[in-house]
């Protein structure tokens, strides 16, 4: 009786103390409730405020997160909510990236004609966006299998609803249903794997060494199976092969700002979770099992690279092309994570940050093409480079960065990633790493071929149809805002790299 009592008191104190670390999430939840409240009014003028409220929410959360990052003076890794959550460097940095992604999504939605103030579901749209951000923040803070599942479900449900935002478009409904079905299947399989992990590991906290020691007593084949089952959920979220099939369909149906958000934020969250698993697992499990997981991870990375790059070659629609390019980028990052070494983390985070800017940039151009200029197939882009030169040049810069050519940050990201793979190869001598490095290099060359198709049509082909001249002033400014960091981080990567270094340091 007394033990239960002290345990309860302890737990309650723990939970109380934990709230101090959750200010960003609470703020976002507050804004979520505020938007729902504002949506209850019928007046169009109040509905027009909602995007700005969402923007304010994200800005405040960035401000809060930067403050927390600045005040990391006497840092001890906090574990709160009775071992459910932690607020270490990885989680804080990822949270920062989510808020930036949220701001960009609001900007893109502001520029989207159909998501303006006459949009019927505007309140729900921004509310779900905020909830999605809350879910992502909780996901990267999770240390507990069940917490992981709950946050992942929160993220998924908000995503399903956001996919089908533009209800009057048949393709949106189709994408939404496909996403729900695929996502539920992935969640179910993941839960199945997690239940085995809990059963054999003895605890829900997957960062404790005892958990992995218990698991390593299992037969190695079975261990790999349950590991793979659990990872289905995370690989699904980052769109890695063979769990990527939802990506092209969802990217085709959802509204462009949401697609841009999907291609960046859940990826970052998924990779942080994968990193937590790999780091926790790295030093505590027997050598043979580690080798097996290493080969599994390498195999998935290779498969993702192959599937993503080769399928993208065949695409005729910009959105599907970018979906497969997203899969390919997941492959590059998985290749970097295969070595499961701590020195790969900086490279991965640098790459993810640059990916954020690149993806939002390219999806903004896709939005301009589709919504302002009425173009869906790539070949309708013919001759646009001459009518809109500024847009064309910025698109080229973003595409060069996506390929990974100098002088853009995409090249620096790839350079750092390849360096870490090479270094790990030098240290371990495992041929799988060399294969990953060489295939990643060759696929970079291949990727150029499908990325260059957009400027190819824009600049090389003649404009056969009448193109009315639309004013793209606002879009150009926002696009320049997203492209400028790509050039900046090439010339001075040290600024971003120092930030990431500090962040990684605070997650030990």
């Amino acid at each position: 009786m007394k033990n239960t009592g002290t345990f309860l008191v302890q737990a309650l104190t723990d939970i109380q103390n934990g709230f101090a670390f959750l200010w960003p999430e609470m703020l976002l939840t507050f804004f979520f409730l505020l938007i729902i409240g504002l949506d209850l009014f019928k007046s169009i003028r109040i509905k027009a405020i909602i995007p700005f409220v969402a923007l304010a929410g994200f800005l405040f959360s960035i401000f809060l997160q930067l403050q927390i990052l600045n005040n990391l003076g006497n840092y001890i890794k906090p574990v709160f909510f009775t071992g459910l959550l932690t607020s270490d460097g990885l989680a804080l940095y990822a949270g920062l990236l989510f808020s930036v992604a949220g701001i960009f999504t609001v900007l893109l939605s502001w520029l989207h004609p159909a998501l303006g103030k006459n949009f019927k579901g505007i309140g729900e749209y921004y509310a779900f966006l905020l909830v999605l951000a809350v879910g992502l923040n909780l996901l990267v803070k999770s240390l507990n299998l069940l917490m992981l599942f709950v946050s992942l479900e929160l993220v998924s449900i908000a995503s399903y609803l956001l996919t089908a935002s533009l209800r009057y478009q048949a393709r949106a409904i189709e994408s939404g249903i496909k996403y729900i079905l695929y996502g539920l299947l992935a969640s179910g399989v993941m839960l199945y794997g997690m239940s085995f992990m809990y059963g054999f590991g003895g605890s829900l906290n997957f960062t404790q060494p005892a958990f992995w020691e218990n698991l390593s007593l299992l037969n190695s084949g079975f261990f790999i199976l349950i590991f793979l089952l659990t990872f289905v959920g995370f690989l699904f979220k980052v769109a890695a092969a063979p769990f990527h099939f939802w990506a092209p369909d969802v990217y085709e149906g959802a509204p462009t700002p949401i697609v841009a958000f999907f291609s960046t934020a859940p990826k970052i969250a998924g990779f942080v979770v994968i990193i937590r698993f790999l780091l926790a697992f790295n030093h505590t499990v027997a050598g043979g099992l580690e080798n097996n997981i290493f080969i599994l991870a390498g195999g998935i990375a290779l498969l993702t690279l192959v599937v993503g790059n080769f399928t993208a070659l065949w695409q005729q629609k910009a959105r599907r092309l970018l979906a497969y390019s997203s899969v390919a980028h997941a492959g590059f990052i998985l290749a970097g994570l295969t070595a499961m070494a701590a020195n790969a983390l900086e490279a991965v985070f640098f790459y993810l940050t640059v990916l954020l800017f690149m993806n939002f940039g390219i999806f903004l151009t896709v939005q301009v093409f589709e919504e302002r200029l009425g173009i869906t197939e790539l070949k309708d882009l013919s001759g646009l480079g001459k009518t809109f030169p500024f847009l064309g040049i910025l698109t080229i810069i973003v595409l060069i960065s996506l390929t990974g050519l100098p002088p853009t940050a995409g090249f620096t990201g790839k350079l750092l990633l390849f360096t870490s793979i090479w270094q790990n190869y030098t240290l371990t001598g495992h041929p799988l790493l060399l294969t990953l490095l060489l295939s990643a290099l060759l696929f970079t060359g291949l990727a150029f071929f499908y990325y260059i198709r957009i400027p190819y049509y824009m600049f090389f082909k003649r404009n056969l149809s009448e193109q009315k001249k639309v004013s793209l002033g606002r879009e150009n400014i926002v696009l320049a805002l997203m492209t400028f960091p790509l050039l900046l981080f090439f010339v001075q990567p040290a600024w971003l790299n120092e930030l990431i270094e500090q962040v990684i340091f605070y997650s030990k």
Partner: protein
Amino acid sequence: MNYILSSLIFIPILTVLLILCLPARLQNGIRLLSLLATAAQLILAVWLFWNFQPASAIGGSMYQYVEQVNWIHLNLQSLGQLQIQYYLGVDGISLSMVLLTGIIGFIGVISSWQISKNVKAYFALYLLLLGSVMGCFLALDLFLFYLFFEFMLLPMYFLIGIWGGPRREYAAIKFFIYTLIGSLLILVVMIGLYTSVIDPTATAANLSASFGSEETSGTARQQVQQLLQQGNIPAEKLVHTFSIPAMYQPQNFIPGSLLHGMSQKILWGLPVRLLAFLLLFIGFAIKLPMVPVHTWLPDAHVEAPTPISVLLASLLLKVGGYGLVRVLYPIFPDGGIYFAYLVGGLGVLSIIYGAMCALAMSDLKKLIAYSSVSHMGFVLLGLASLTAEGANGAMYQMFSHGLISGMLFIVTGVIYDRSRSRIIQNFRGLAFAMPAFTALVVVAFFASLGLPGFSGFIAELLVLLGAFTSSGVSGMLPRWLAVVATGGLLLGAAYYLWALQRMFFGKFWVHPAIMEKPIMPDITKREYSMLVPLAILALLFGLFPSLLLDKISPALNQWVESVLLLGKEQIAVVLRGIA
């Protein structure tokens, strides 16, 4: 004149910004601005050439007008630190290339005068390309070199793809992806290199925090190198660098790293250093171009507009050769010695195969493209021989071929401008319609096939001398390679004289499908102003080779010596590893 090298690179690039601000209808203004920019570049390049002091045997740095600024400094935690510098310098190896870039850049702008479609975009891309090529030749930091090397591809892609001939999109994408794959191979080796090389001065600075003493740079460097070779420096304190001069010294390589000079690690049956040599070699050979990775060149040349063909042939191809001399051989001399037979053999293959393909061509521009392949084979042969004559000849061939192929492509441009066709069979007896032009064409063709008196002869003579003496002096190449290469000269004469005879002599006739009434006006003043200076330069450097050789020989002789010395040392270790 401290910043002359940066000015050489940034004058064209800043002019691009200026051009982008001008309205598109000011076409003549844009052309004049580009002309001024390239003229400024030419004057600076000539000044540099004139005031360059050939490397003396007395100590001191080989590189002149050096600009070295710390640019990117990344902390890679357990892997040490990474330092990238903005490091420019000119020495005997890059001097001739800088001069060539200045000359051809200027001539190219004159040749671009009648481009009328989208003038603003054209000259912006042209100047970007020119600045990039100049940067490639001046960079002494491998990252900077790679940046300019890759960045050249993009303006070229758009220039061929928008202003080119009927199959321009195919040619542009083929060019880009082919050379991109080459660049990616170079990237692999670059990553391997920079993780294996440290900068002794920066590491000394890093360590002096723990030494707690101020020392002069020379001794500190040697101390650090000694410590490194003994393995006494912790990994986090090492400052990795991309600096090419640092990579020239084997004491800067971390022992135990894959690319260390004495490393005996084997990968896929070959020692890693030899594998790295092959990868780098293929990367640069694609650009050279060398048979069998030359197939992008005929398409790119035929479809590109004339001034872009001039730039492609005269400058971009030389970047490949320059990369071999600057990056490949000094850093991997053991590979140079081990694969000398292979490189020389591929060089001779390029010479003969290129010439035979040229013999079979009916399109004049394609003929000259294949002759380019053939002439660049001489560069490979000269480098592979690893003799003083061979190296000097290779460098001279790069310079001379730049001038002469510029002339040749302008010649085809002249014919194409008037008749919209380049097919040899469509023309006869042009000498009677265009006598002045024929005189210049005869000069160009004879210069290209190696007539004594022109620079091509000096270059090919030196290369063949080097190849012949190689078996006695450096022991690299067998004599029969040189004999077969001489046969290439004969083939060269064959295709040029035959084309000359078919197109220019006989009765004047143009195929009626091309022109109903054959009217071929003689060359205009603008075309005179392009062809005559190039002809004079080819003659000048053919009659007074010491003008160039005095400046570049010392550096190249030193190059040969160090490659042979270091290479023989290293290859002995490497071969012991395989044995």
